[in-house]
């Protein structure tokens, strides 16, 4: 009833806008909308926001939907602003190695396009089949190669953002270096769409690596000390891995067939430099460790497979078990401890737990699968564990009912009043992605 | 840019000079090159200690300029930063535009001393040192006065140390034993000799500045210098009429006395082709004599001619060639760049090269080797706190595992000896040229015994 009125109101104000009733089926992960709008221009996006702002309608922003299970406490907002149809490459300047794209453009589409010019966005997020660039940036998603290339905050150089009142602002620019005014890109990266709707993103690109190899060093004894000491020795050399990812035995078995802790080490450079590094690490590895190498296409296939492991909101899941994904941040080498802990939790709670984490950047991902109580208990343990190490745990994927039982982002930091202040300045009526972010923002 | 403007010889109270009311003010062309970039900050030992702009080269230049702009008086607030400067010249090395901060400071000190003459014990001490003592060689030799001067700063023990053999490895004591005992100054020793002839064939003739402190406190260094010069075919002349170089006076702002001494030296060395100096501070001063005569064109020219003849001993040997000794010294040393050698005269590689060519000398490099040791003429008397803070910082960089610290300036030798003593280190402080001399002497001794002993 209310929905029909809303649709009628929006349609009469913006007759061109594609709009549909969202209540046909409510998604089990929530973050849905009673009305779904599919703007195709920035003006339309601004119009929808202006409308929502004036009418105090809550708005959820989404495109591919792979991050639907991350944060948010409502089944449905008034309006689901879908950027699925706001896509395309705006500008690609080959010589400048910069690219401007619309936020709803699927990540994979972009990578495929610029690969034709021997360039790449140096980010390796998850759920590549579904993720859009806007989602990757808004959720600050990053993968194992963050060690070599950094995360979204290191690659995004400019954006266009629509504020809740419909104002369009530009942040950054088209140059790889820019310190005019505050570094506003940073404010919106990882803000989970709670401040504005990102419509365009300009990224700095890297040349596509000339050669790529993946080294797998296994640790059959599973001794964390041994992993630690090898990693420290290796990191203290002049080798330049772009990923140094520790895989839990369960995940390693799935990806490599070896059921033991395995280090996945990626080298990307000219072929001679890659081969030199592969030989180097082979000589350095402990005697008890297994060693195998994947080159080029097979290395890429491995990483591709890894991006498909985490549960994601865009894939329909009807199974009986609860699936959760946890992102843990700790000091780089503490990832080893986190991996060990996640491995031990499997037995304790009778869960399937697959985990991996970067020893050069300190971000670990843990995927849990099992009865919901067990999952929640294990999450509790992991969070306490991470916090004891001075880090944090964020639940990047969890069913709605469980999100209502636990704080997805963990405890509020002492400076969260600044978050509130920022939110209040930009979105005073709190219409954008309400309660989806830290401290109930 | 950069050319001294002799026509700047204006009346004393020229409006263009702001609050500089006396002759010989800091020169505008010197500060005009400063763009306030701040690259000098970390080079400055006083900024390192105090962290305050007015005690940095850039800050001092800014203040010197401010006086000219009429924003600041020549008063205590101006005098403090200007006199707190060690005059180490490290800033000039660091400066991308080679701003002559040292020159500006000296000129500014000249203004300060004329604006506010010293009074009380400071005046007496200064007068005693600068007017009564240093210019008069015979008085300096009366060690009593000198000891008084050193007692004041606790240097007494150290002075002895530099002349004594203590805590030295056996083979060094052995080496010491082959050295001639020099107690009298070389000026006294050679007072009746016109030219000290080269040991073998004469290739060149040089005149030597004996220096005031050097010749009394470190007469063995002067002797070593003569030995090395004569060994390498130089006839050495010690002009009788020479006097103190005046560096201490100029550093203290007494430019008038500085000019007086400079004139005397210019005349004393008039007939010499080359003036060899083994004290970096003196050498630097001699090379900068023209700076004192911006307002006396005739002397400016004579000073330029004179300064072109001045050369540091290490650089002279490096340039003209010398015999590499054959005997091995077997010692580990480190080298300290005297400010007025490295920053003041740009001489860094030559003494190192000389040391490295002595067989058996192993050189351990000293981090921040060209950082001031805090001696800076009489600075350690006028600013004892700062001097000892700078020294402390210097001592942390001296490698533990060396037997000797070599350098090319007597002021540094005294200060470093204080450091060695104060921080319980056991290095011996030596002049670069001494090492070369010892190697020659050892060679001669060995040459004589060669068959019998081995």
């Amino acid at each position, binding site marked *: 009833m209310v929905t029909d009125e809303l649709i009628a109101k929006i349609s009469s104000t913006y007759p061109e806008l594609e709009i549909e009733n969202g209540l046909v089926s409510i998604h089990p992960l929530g973050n849905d909308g009673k009305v779904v709008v599919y703007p195709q221009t920035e003006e339309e996006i601004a119009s929808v926001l202006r409308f929502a702002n004036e009418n105090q309608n809550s708005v959820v922003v989404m495109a591919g939907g792979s991050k639907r299970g991350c944060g948010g406490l409502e089944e449905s907002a008034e309006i689901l602003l879908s950027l699925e149809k706001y896509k395309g490459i705006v500008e690609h*300047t080959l*010589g*400048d190695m*910069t690219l401007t794209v619309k936020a709803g453009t699927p990540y994979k589409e972009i990578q495929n396009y610029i690969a034709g010019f021997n360039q790449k966005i140096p980010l390796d997020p998850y759920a590549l089949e579904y993720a859009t660039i806007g989602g990757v940036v808004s959720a600050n998603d990053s993968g194992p190669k963050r060690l070599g290339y*950094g995360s979204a*905050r290191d690659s995004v150089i400019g954006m266009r953002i629509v*504020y809740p009142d419909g*104002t369009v*602002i530009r*942040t950054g*620019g088209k*140059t*790889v270096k*820019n*310190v*005019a*005014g505050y*570094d*506003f890109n940073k404010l919106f*990266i990882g*803000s989970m769409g709670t401040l504005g709707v990102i419509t365009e993103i300009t990224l700095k690109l890297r040349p596509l690596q*000339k050669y790529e190899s993946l080294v797998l060093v296994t640790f059959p004894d599973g001794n964390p000390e041994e992993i630690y000491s090898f990693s*420290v020795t290796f*990191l203290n050399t*002049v080798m330049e891995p772009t990923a140094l990812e520790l895989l839990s035995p369960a995940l390693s078995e799935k990806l490599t067939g070896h059921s033991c802790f395995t280090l996945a080490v990626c080298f990307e450079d*000219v072929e001679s*430099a890659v081969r030199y590094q592969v030989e180097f690490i082979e000589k350095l590895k402990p005697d008890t460790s297994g060693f195998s190498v994947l080159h080029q296409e097979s290395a890429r296939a491995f990483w591709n497979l890894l991006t498909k492991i985490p549960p994601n909101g865009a894939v329909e899941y009807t199974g009986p078990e609860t699936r959760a994904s946890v*992102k843990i*941040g700790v*000091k*780089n080498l503490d990832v080893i401890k986190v991996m060990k802990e996640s491995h031990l939790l499997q037995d304790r709670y009778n869960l399937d737990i697959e985990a991996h984490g970067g020893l*050069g950047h*300190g971000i670990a991902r843990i995927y849990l699968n099992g009865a919901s109580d067990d999952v929640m208990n294990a999450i509790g343990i992991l969070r306490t564990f991470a916090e004891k190490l001075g880090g*944090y745990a*964020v639940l990047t994927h969890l069913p709605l009912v469980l999100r209502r039982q636990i704080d997805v982002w963990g405890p509020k*930091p*002492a400076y969260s009043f*600044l*978050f509130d*202040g920022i939110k209040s*300045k*930009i979105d005073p009526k709190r219409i954008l992605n309400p309660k989806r972010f*830290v*401290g109930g923002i | 840019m*950069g050319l001294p403007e002799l026509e700047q010889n204006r009346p004393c109270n020229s409006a263009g000079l702001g609050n500089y009311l006396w002759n010989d003010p800091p020169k505008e062309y010197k500060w*005009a*090159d*400063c*763009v306030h*970039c*701040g*690259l000098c*900050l*970390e080079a400055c030992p006083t900024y390192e200690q105090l962290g*305050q*702009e007015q005690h940095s080269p850039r800050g001092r230049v800014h203040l010197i300029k401010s006086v000219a702009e009429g924003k600041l008086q020549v*008063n205590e607030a101006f005098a403090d930063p200007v006199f707190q400067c060690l005059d180490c010249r490290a800033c000039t090395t660091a*400066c*991308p*535009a080679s701003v002559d901060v040292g020159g500006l400071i000296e000129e500014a000190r000249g203004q300060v001393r004329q604006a506010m003459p010293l009074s009380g014990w400071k005046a007496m001490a200064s007068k005693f040192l600068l007017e009564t003592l240093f210019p008069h060689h015979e008085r300096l030799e009366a060690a009593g006065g000198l000891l008084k001067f050193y007692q004041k700063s606790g240097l007494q023990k150290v002075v002895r140390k530099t002349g004594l053999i203590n805590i030295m490895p056996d083979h060094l004591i052995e080496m010491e034993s082959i050295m001639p005992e020099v107690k009298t100054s070389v000026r006294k020793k050679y007072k009746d000799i016109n030219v000290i002839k080269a040991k073998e064939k004469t290739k060149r003739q040089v005149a030597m500045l004996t220096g005031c402190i050097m010749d009394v406190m470190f007469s063995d260094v002067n002797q070593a210098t003569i030995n090395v010069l004569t060994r390498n075919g130089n006839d050495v002349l010690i002009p009788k009429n020479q006097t103190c170089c005046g560096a201490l006076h100029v550093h203290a702002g007494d430019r008038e006395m500085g000019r007086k001494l400079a004139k005397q030296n210019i005349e004393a060395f008039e007939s010499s082709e080359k003036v060899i100096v083994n004290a970096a501070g003196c050498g630097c001063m001699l090379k900068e004599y023209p700076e004192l005569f911006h307002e006396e064109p005739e002397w400016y020219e004579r000073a330029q001619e004179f300064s072109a003849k001045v050369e540091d001993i290490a650089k002279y040997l490096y340039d003209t060639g010398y015999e590499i000794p054959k005997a091995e010294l077997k010692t580990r040393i480190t080298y300290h760049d005297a400010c007025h050698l490295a920053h003041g005269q740009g001489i860094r590689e030559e003494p190192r090269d000389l040391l490295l060519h002595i067989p058996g000398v192993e050189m351990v490099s000293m981090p921040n080797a060209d950082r001031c040791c805090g001696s800076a003429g009489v600075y350690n008397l006028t600013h004892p706190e700062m001097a000892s803070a700078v020294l402390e910082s210097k001592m942390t960089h001296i490698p533990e595992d060396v037997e000797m610290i070599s350098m090319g300036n007597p002021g540094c030798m005294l200060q470093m000896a204080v450091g060695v003593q104060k921080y319980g280190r056991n290095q011996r402080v030596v002049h670069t040229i001494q090492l070369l001399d010892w190697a020659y002497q050892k060679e001669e001794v060995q040459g004589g015994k060669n068959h019998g002993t081995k």
Partner: protein
Amino acid sequence: MARNKLDTNDPHILHLAKLVSGPNAILYKQEDLLAYDCDGFTIERHLPRAVVFPNNTEEVAKIVKFCSENKLPFLARGAGTGLSGGAVPLNNEIIISLVRMKRLLEVDFENRRAVVEPGYVNLKLTNSIADKGYYYAPDPSSQYACTIGGNVAENAGGAHCLKYGVTTNHILGLEVVLPNGDVMEISPNGIADFPGYDLLGLLTGSEGTLGIVTKITVRILKNPEAKQTVLAYFDRVQDGSQAVSNIISAGIVPAALEMMDKVAIEGVEAAAFPVGHPKDIAAVLLIEVDGIAAGIDEQIQLILDVCKKSHVREVKVAEDEAERARWWANRKTGFGAMGAISPDYLVQDGVIPRSKLPEVLERIHKISEESGLRIANIFHAGDGNLHPLVLFDSRVPGDTEKAIRAGSACLKACADAGGSITGEHGVGIEKKEEMRFVFNDDEIKAQTDIRDVFNPDRLLNAGKLFPTPSRCAEMKQELKRPEHAK
């Protein structure tokens, strides 16, 4: 601790003096303050109310709290090498000098991070970890003197940020004193992606308007196995620019790619670190490649080939570390070296998409001709960061104004080419009006809104970074006043 006797009745000064320990921890007499009337940007000068020298975070917090409670304007200062006037006390501020907070607190090689106080000098960090084979990547030309706290405030760049990024890419954690005196630890332990808005990113480059950083966790990197540096001379600037684009397009990410034009070459050759560049060439490129030794030769060969195809006159690879160091000293002291050919210079910091180099350089050349002032160009060509150095003589009446106008015109040229008005020096006082070249009123308001969240009373470093309210806003104010007066 020695407490110096104060010769003042000013209650604020007397109170402030009690908040800081150590000798000479406060300056308040006009003669002592004179040296603090500007930083590396000398065109605008203002005396501070006082300068205080805190020794630790607690003292900073106390000073800030006192200033905040008594509505006293204040700002933080490091080495004062900033080139946009960020540390100039426009409003008679109390300067909080952080130079006594210069300790290296911790180095954690295993996790590749170091914790420093804000007054710690950039190059000292690299020097103190060099023996273990590590370094701190951001290397602004002033790295001999500038502090890491200042680097954070300005989001400093440097010659090697083409490959390794600028300061913000290397800051892992900050302890910050907010303008109300609260002390906050952002991203404790330097752990990545702490939940919440990216305050780390926002604070870095905020030019000291959001808070005062008192502790910094930075990323340290392992020295590359090998480095090679190439020097290439071009007879035409266009050829040099083309070579820059071609090198990047060939899939090489050089660690540095620097360029100097003819006037700049004249300057560096006349100054303290000449290397003997031919006087008659139009442009010199300095290209550095680093990484795994086994792969370097291939890249160097590629660079040499590209240069040759771009009509290079002469191209050579540094023979040893000494030669490489000489080339870099010549380049890094380039700004100050202008002192040797001009009494004053004004350095600009425009940034453009790399491909626009030839056209923007041409426009700068025209600006030089029109203004009658020489403009030297020293720049980070690889990331399109231009440093036009406008040479002038402040003693010549009208010259300073002319230089400022020429500098501004250079920035306009950059903005028009799709670039920005500053790549690494910051906006400060110098370029706040030029902010309008790149941002509209909404965008500027969006930023000042965020400033007001942190700095609601605008006591901290006010009057910087943003243009004075726009013309029409001013007009409205003007119109209101007489009405109100009635």
